[in-house]
């Protein structure tokens, strides 16, 4: 978590959910794609972090 900008997960997720259209499944793939590209520097070492999605949805969710 960046001490001023917040966590890459929440920042990317909110950006995608606000600015992109699609089903929630599609939006979450975009979140995962962007997070996979992001490098987080921890104690001078680049790290990777990405979400895991487990779903029991039976239909598509559209938020926009």
């Amino acid at each position, binding site marked *: *978590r*960046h*001490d*001023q*900008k*917040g*966590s890459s*997960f*929440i*920042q990317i*997720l*909110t*950006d995608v*959910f*606000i600015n992109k259209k699609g*089903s*929630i499944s599609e939006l979450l793939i975009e979140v*995962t794609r962007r*997070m*996979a*590209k992001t*490098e987080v520097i*921890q104690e001078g*070492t*680049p*790290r*990777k*972090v*990405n979400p*895991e999605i*487990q779903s*029991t*949805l*039976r*239909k*598509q*969710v*559209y*938020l*926009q």
Partner: protein
Amino acid sequence: ELKMSGPQPLQEEVYDMSGARLALTLCVTKAREGSGADMDALKRMFHQLRFESTMKTDPTAQQFLEELEKFQQVIENWEEPVSCAFVVLMAHGEEGLLKGEDEQMVKLEDLFEILNNKNCRALRGKPKVYIIQACRGEHRDLGETIGGDEVAMITKDDLQTIPTYTDTLHIYSTVEGYISY
């Protein structure tokens, strides 16, 4: 005459989202610098997506449960039909556990149970989305160098590593704790 037909396109079904959208955010800020920025971003998102949003900071382990139970009651007593609920949980954590402001742990499973189809009638069959910003263990991912087919796609500006766990779909025959028939 029997004709061979190819795969048919999926018929997309969608959840009815015309009713109320309710969101609860519970965030431990203690020793979690930057969590204020995350709460601000969530506030913007819930406003943009027309959610009725409630945010609480620094819940203890017990308060995580109590706030979820309060939220369940709010949903059950909502005057118009409820279409979906979002729950955002932000804290330090371990696999299956969140750490409250009082350093005590609460089980994620106990939190999820509160809004399931058995315990929350108003959300029965409605989408319930949990966003969890917390550690699930101690491992650190340094990433792996991209190889194979991906090599051709690397350009000078692209990062050349990929997280250890991507491109996997976990499909279980039953939810955790239940028998698979």
